[in-house]
């Protein structure tokens, strides 16, 4: 494999994690447009631990994920009072707040950026990406996920049957934040340089777009969406200045024909059926 495609694969792995962080929160019917903020927290915390405290990358990522998880839970509580577009705007504000914080936080470089982290390989990124994707896929078959989906479908009815909707929604925020933080930590240690501009609103939109494009009802959709978002603009380079316009048109066409995203449960069931028949 060329180093170019290795670089793109690394980007896909990081974007898969970012998309999964949105998907986990979205399962409870909450749309977060601020996951770049959690990514930034993970990125800076993990970088501080490896560059300044000389920790190994793996424990640094775990601590970064736990830190973001706690902040996610704190953000999740006030978010309980908001729904739909209002929640989306509030989380967007959170993301911008975090980015602005790191812009003026000079101990970690401020707008001048931060470097000094060790480099992580493509394989290491994909161990995390595949591991968390597998975890989410397994969770999708669990009772916990059914409860999360019940909150998504009808929060009041879910409460009436004894599901702790507050815990479910706040927990989803914490879990999603932790996954975004791991994406951030891997991003920092892959590119060995970070600055607040890396975690802007566009990054959050990319996460949401990967989920919507790949499929917002199954975890594996994040993988499909991330791969398309990274690879399509590269494959369209022959169109030169028109490539981003063509990319936009293709996105619209996909969403017109598959509003639920490319992957959904019926398609997954069909693929499984074919595989079983072939076997």
């Amino acid at each position, binding site marked *: 494999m*060329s*180093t*170019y495609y*290795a*670089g*793109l694969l690394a*980007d896909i792995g990081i974007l898969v994690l970012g998309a999964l962080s949105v998907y986990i929160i979205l399962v409870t019917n909450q749309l977060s447009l601020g996951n770049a903020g959690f990514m930034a927290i993970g990125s800076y915390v993990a970088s501080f631990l490896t560059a300044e405290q000389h920790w190994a990358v793996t424990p640094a990522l775990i601590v970064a994920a736990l830190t973001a998880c706690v902040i996610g839970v704190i953000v999740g509580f006030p978010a309980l009072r908001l729904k739909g577009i209002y929640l989306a705007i509030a989380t967007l504000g959170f993301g911008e707040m975090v980015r602005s914080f790191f*812009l*003026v936080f000079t101990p970690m470089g*401020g*707008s*001048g*950026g931060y*470097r000094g982290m060790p*480099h992580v390989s493509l394989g290491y990124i994909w161990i995390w990406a595949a591991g968390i994707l597998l975890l989410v896929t397994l969770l999708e078959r669990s009772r916990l996920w059914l409860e999360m989906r019940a909150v998504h479908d009808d929060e009041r009815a879910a409460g009436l049957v004894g599901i702790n909707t507050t815990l479910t929604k706040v927990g989803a925020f914490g879990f999603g934040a932790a996954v975004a933080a791991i994406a951030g930590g891997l991003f920092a240690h892959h*590119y*060995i*340089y970070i*600055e*607040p*501009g*890396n975690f802007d609103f566009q990054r959050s939109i990319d996460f949401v777009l990967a989920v919507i494009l790949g499929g917002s009802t199954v975890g594996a959709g994040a993988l499909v969406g991330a791969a398309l978002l990274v690879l399509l603009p*590269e494959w369209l*380079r022959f169109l030169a*200045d028109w*490539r*981003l316009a063509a990319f936009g048109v293709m996105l619209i066409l996909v969403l017109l024909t598959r509003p639920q995203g490319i992957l959904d449960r019926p398609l997954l069931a069909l693929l499984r059926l074919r595989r079983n028949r072939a076997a």
Partner: protein
Amino acid sequence: MRTHLFGGAIVAVTLIAGLHMAQAQNIITLGAIVPSSGPFAEWGRSNTATLEMLEKQINDAGGINGAKLKIVILDDGAKPAQAANDLRKLAGDDHALAVAGPLTSSACEVTFPVANQMQIVSTSQASSKPGVAKANRPWAFRDTVDEGILARASVPYFKKTFGAKSVAIIYDAKDAVSTAIATKIMPKVFADNGIEVLNASAPVSFNTGDLDVSAQVTKLKSLNPDGVVIGADYSQAITVLREMKRQGLDKPVIGGTPLISSAILAAAPEIPIIAPATFYATMKTPKAEKFVATLQPLLRKTAGLPPDIEPSMYDANIYEIVSMYIDAIKKSGITGKASDLEADRTKIRDYMTNLKGFEGFSGSIGFNADGDASKAFFIVQGQKGAWATKVTGCSTGGSC
């Protein structure tokens, strides 16, 4: 007769195929990373037009040592991660001998380590954030001068010309170079020159893309400074200048190289602007005049830029960078063959490291131990729609 015809056809086909193969083998590939989309698209698109012009000039003149020049230009959208992937593609898939770009310091921070890893020369046309090339020796270079060196020449001129005893700072907090110029580099040079920075402890800031800076300019006005420091690229500085004009804050302005543009002069023609440059479109040298005269029509025709956009300093820099690579290929025995790729790249690196006396737009160019250009620069004053050279200096301190 039929046998002769058949034989002739075989010979002709063989000759054509041979010629085609020879042409296919004799291609020298160079790469470029420019932001043709995103916030610096104007610079990226004019860079693209510049490179296409240079490629045509070289090939029309017979190529490089008989080989055709091909410049593969990739857009990074001013996104650091994209720039790093572009460099991987140029080095790994396109087998470029060297790369011009990326443009921004943020992209260089991420791309230069990849250049070192892949052992290919990468030279930025615009990055001037201190220490970026120095941290990525020996494959990273910048055809720019450290802003600290430039400030040491521009501030004394500013003081002498306008009798400035105090200044107030406004800067784009989202941009690393602008922040470094306004909050780190300039205050130190002002202190060395006995100029008081009235808001040194709390400089006024705004963010890239802000359209309303009226509150910030009101704050500056309340300080009643003798001059204003604008740490921003020209497109953001225009917003500040228009607001200064609207509020009647007609004080002289000083800044770094990102201010240099013809467009900024139209924003507030009555406000004098002092900035350093290694090239500006109205320079009166035969080489610069020929470059502008050839490139300017192409900026409209091929890049689709508005009529008031002139070739920028970054166009001149990327032209110089690729010209250096071409000179290296001509003089260092570079073959351009796939089997010699590694050796050819090393020869270009050695050429750049030891370069002295390359004829650029401002005079002769070389590179210092940090990988930054040693070249002549000008302190220019912009007023009433035109830049004029007021001070000439050399980044090495002597003469260039």
